[in-house]
Every structure is written in C-alpha cells, then in structure tokens.
C-alpha cells in the first residue's frame, strides 16, 4: 500500500494519532523550508503537507498569509513547489501538497498530477475545490496514482459528508473550526461528532485540522481521530526559532498523540 496508508497504520499500531505538519513551500526560503521540514520529521512528524503559496488565500488567517507573502516575494514558483515535494519525498515521509485550485488549474490539471507524482508526492489537499467541480481532477488523480483529499466542515450536512467521503482517497480532512487557519485557544466539542459522522460514511483515516496548535489539543483530538494537523503553530515556531523551533514543536506535539 501507499506511504500515506503506511504512516496512518504505523501510528495506529503504536496506539496514537499521526502528526501531520503544514508548511508553505519557500518559507522562510526554498532551502529553509526543506531544512525546517527535515527538523520537523526528526521531531516526530509523520506526514508533511507542503503549501502551494497563493496570492489569494481565503481560507488562511494572518499567520499563514504572512508566510505565504514572504514565500511569494522570495520568488516561489510552481517549480519551487514540485522541487520541494521531491526533496521532502526523498526524506522518506509521505509528501502532500495543499493548494488552492487556481494554481493547479493554471499549471494544467493533468500535468500537475503527472509532475507531482513523478516528484514522489502522494496526495493533494484542495481546500477550495469541492467534489462537484472536481471531474477533471478526479480523472487526473486516478490516472496518476495521486490521493485527493477533500474537506468536511462542521456545517456539512450528512448528504455532503457522504459526497465528500465518496470522492476522497487517502484520508479525510475534518475542519475543526468554522473559520480560517490560525491558532485557537479552544477547539469546538462539535468536531468529535463530525468525525463520528464521517466514520459512518467512510473507512478512510480521518485527520483533524484548523486551529490546532498545542500538545493538549493534539491529545484531545488523538482520542477520536486518526491524525492531527498543525500548520500556523509551525510557522510561528519557525519565525521565532527557525528549524530548531520547528523540531521542538514537533517533539512537544508528538507527546500529545498517545491514546
């Protein structure tokens, strides 16, 4: 089976949730991102989400917006993202890309799936693409063996959850808050119910993200979800302490993953 499947299976066998970390390609620089991701993996990150920096990130709060701006101003291009995927895949961890839809459409839907797969990438998360608009994407990802991750939200009806579950491969991304990315002091109780609803429609692993930043929150989520996704907190740690900060945060979060 795939690297992604293996990562969730390994975590499960260790009676814990998998740790999924997000960082935009090119932040703080192209090499710096790879260095930080390497440190994150050393610190215990199981799965890496590489952000495709985009000029209009409507799902992101100020922390990731700033990181993405720095990346774009530093000259990040599509090629930078593919290259970063290759370097992260070479570390032996499952590498995903998280991308708003337009950069993929502009690249060419089939070309992107082809080049992403060739670089060793395993899956792509598309936060502003719903299954209704994804016909071409479903074809391309099927033919190039790329997992496609859609999101469910606290506001999703049962009918929509079923639709998303049907269209998704790899794992299902459950948004923990109604809102944009960024650390929150508390995570809604409703997310546990959402994960339970998803499980009624799918056997895929379910990972929870948006707003998650602390080991305590990770611990809470690990009790009912298969993966914990952390993004903004890594950006903040890197801004403060670089790769060492990223590693320290990964280590701290790892301690929270046990069931």
């Amino acid at each position, binding site marked *: 089976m795939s690297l992604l499947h293996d990562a969730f299976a390994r975590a499960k066998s260790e009676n814990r949730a998998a740790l999924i970390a997000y960082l935009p390609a090119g932040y703080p620089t192209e090499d710096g991102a790879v260095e930080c991701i390497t440190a994150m993996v050393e610190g215990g990150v199981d799965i890496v989400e590489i952000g495709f920096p*985009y*000029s*209009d*990130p*409507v*799902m992101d*709060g100020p922390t990731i*917006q700033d990181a993405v*701006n720095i990346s*774009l101003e530093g000259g990040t*291009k*599509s090629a930078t993202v593919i290259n970063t995927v290759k370097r992260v895949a070479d570390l032996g961890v499952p590498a995903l890309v998280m991308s708003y*839809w*337009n*950069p*993929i*459409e*502009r*690249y060419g839907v089939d070309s992107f799936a082809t080049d992403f797969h060739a670089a060793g990438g395993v899956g792509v998360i598309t*936060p*502003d*693409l*719903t299954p*209704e*608009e994804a016909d071409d994407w479903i074809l391309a990802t099927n033919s190039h063996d790329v997992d496609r991750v*859609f*999101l*469910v*939200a*606290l*506001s*999703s*009806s049962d009918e*929509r959850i079923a639709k*998303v579950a049907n269209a998704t491969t790899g794992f299902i991304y459950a*948004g923990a*808050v*109604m*809102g*944009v990315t960024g650390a929150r002091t508390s995570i809604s109780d409703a997310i546990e119910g959402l994960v339970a609803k998803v499980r009624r429609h799918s056997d895929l692993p379910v990972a929870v993200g948006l707003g998650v930043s602390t080991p305590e929150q990770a611990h809470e989520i690990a009790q009912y979800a298969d993966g914990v996704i952390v993004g903004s907190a890594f950006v903040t740690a890197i801004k403060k302490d670089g790769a060492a900060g990223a590693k320290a945060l990964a280590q701290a979060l790892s301690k929270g993953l046990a069931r």
Partner: protein
Amino acid sequence: MTANDVVSVPDLRGHFGKFGGRFVPEALMAALDELDEAFRKASVDPSFLKQLRDLQVNYTGRPSPITEAKRFAEHAGGATILLKREDLNHTGSHKINNVLGQGLLTQRMGKTRVIAETGAGQHGVATATVAALLGLECVVYMGEEDTKRQALNVARMKLLGATVVPVTIGSRTLKDAINEAMRDWVANVETTHYMLGTVAGPAPFPEMVRDFHRIIGDESREQMLSRYGRLPDVVAACVGGGSNAIGIFTAFIGDADVRLLGLEAGGDGIETGRHASTIVGGAVGVLHGARSYIMQDDDGQTIESHSISAGLDYPSVGPEHAYLADIGRAEYRSVTDVEAMNAFKLLCETEGIIPAIETAHALAGAIEIGKELGEGAIILINLSGRGDKDVETAAKYFGMNI
C-alpha cells in the same frame, strides 16, 4: 419571441457554459445552499416581490428616467445618446437595486448581521443604507488604498452606522476586501449574510445579483418602446464585476439586433499590463469562487489590476460576462484612464451631469461606437452612478485647486 425567453440561465450548479460554479471552502457550501433556497423561494413569493417593489418605488425612486444627451452626442458622431439614470437612485448608483433584494433575503433567512466588500464605496454605502433601514448590523471591508481615494464614501458609511474595516494586505483594493469578507463569512456564517456587491463570486450570487439588477434593462426596454418606438442599436455599460452591465443587458439579450457593449477599465493601456480589462486582456481561471476571465501570471497568481476607478479595479469579472463574450453575444472593449477622464469632463460640461468615474468608461466607449455608427444610431448608456464621491480624484486629475 420575447426577451425573457433567452436569458442565459445557469445550470443547476451555477455554470454559464464553462464559467461560474462554486469554488469555495466546504464550510461555506451549506450557507450557499441556504441562500440558493431562500432566493428561489423568494423569487416566486408574491409577498417578497411586493415588499421589494414597494422599496424600489418609494425608497429608491424607481423607475429611473432616460435622459437624452444632445450636446454630448455632438462629440459622438451625431448618434443619439440616451442615459439610463441610475445615478438618480437613492444612494447615487445602481448598487441599491441589489442590496434591497439581498437585505430582504437576509431577514428571511433570520440573519442579523451583514458584511460587504466595497471598492468605490458605492456598494458599501448601499449596504450600510439597507442595514440601517432594516435594522441589521453592518461591517464593510474596504482596501486601505480605496479608503483614501473614496474618503467621502467612508464617511457616509460611518454616518449610516456601519463599521468600515480598512484592509491592509495584498494590493489593498477590492480583491483583498473580498478575501477579507470571505474570511469573516466562513467564521460567522450562522449569523451573517455576505452581501456580495456584483455578479461575481460562487453560485448563486451571479444569477441572484443579476436578477435584482435586471429591472434596469426591463425598465429601459419599455421606456425605449414607448418613447422612441424602437429598441436601441447599442446598449453600453462599464464592467467591473459586471452588475450594472448585466442589469441593463439582460432584457435585451433576446433582441439579436441590439448590440451589447461592455467597457472594461484599461488603466494605463492593455499593452502596459497595468489595467483591469479581464475579458479583453485576461485568461480563464478561478478567483473568488468562480471560473471566469481573470488576471493572472504563469503560476496562477493573481496579478494586481490598475484603474483610476476604484469600482472597476478588480482582476476578475462575473462569469455570465465571460460566457456572453465567449458565445459572441456581447462585445467587450477596453477604455484607458485618460479616455475615461476625458469623457467624464465632457459629460459634466455638456450635460450638467457629473458621472462616477466608473460610468465615465461607458461614456468613452459610447463616444467611440457613436463615431463608428454615426447619425441615426441610438446608443443607450447605463449611467450607473453619480460622481460626488470622485470630485476630489477628478479635481486632482485635472489640476484644479480646491
């Protein structure tokens, strides 16, 4: 065949041909479904239609008249130039048509807070106005750059009790204001309706906003027939997101002999790259929830648009316009800042009407096509707004001391 038979109806998922649709976070899908349902129910509910009609007549002051611009026409090849006076609406532009409809829908959905983006400030003012009228809380997002060039409208919104939030990220113009409004909406969707101000965005906005504006064209068509006994040869309007243009076009879409002309903002000129002409100079892409023509680079990053007019300074366009351009039903041209400002001054001095700078783009396009068609042609222009808000920009542009 009547005009109504040929309105381009989007498919069930809001596609106009290959354009439109919904490219939004899953978290917004439920709200869009709710809005869609409320809109469809209201559209056939006599009590909603009556309430809306009453406001259109007794609050906005509809119908708006058509004024013949005789002295202006001397500069437009002698064609007959007619102005549909949306500038005379309450709040000074066509924008009020849309917000009255969406305001009533907000109430029907049981929501108590509205948010809006604004560029020129006209949509922000209209939203703040309707929020005051209906007792809704109102927050308006406006690019910091635009709060400076449209300071008068910022003051108007504040007087009307709205909170104006200057947006300080990205290009600090309309596109970034929309991003911020979407972020607010995702977080507050339970209590909040997003009053999108143009025919862009995810379905059902393009169709819904069009339907609230189509009264402009419906009235015009009747006024033409009763006063001139014929339809115009050309219907012209400026196109930012495209709401005033689609509003006046819709009634004429089935009239094959009526040319529909949309004028996009050409900024410094298409060839300079500093413009906002997405149909004339853009490429197909996805921005703000819909597939349309957008301004983007090779990596799919949005390119900042440029225009002297804040209301046209937007790097996308409503998907129905993209569709009308593709099937050849409407024609789109680009008008530079200089051409627009010349037309602005000309209307002031020949007709005693100060137009919005947005609208001046339509006037410039009409001068051009008037010269092409010459005497005997009738050109109907949507005079989408008045220029009070632009007095400072114009005075500066023309080097006047005030």
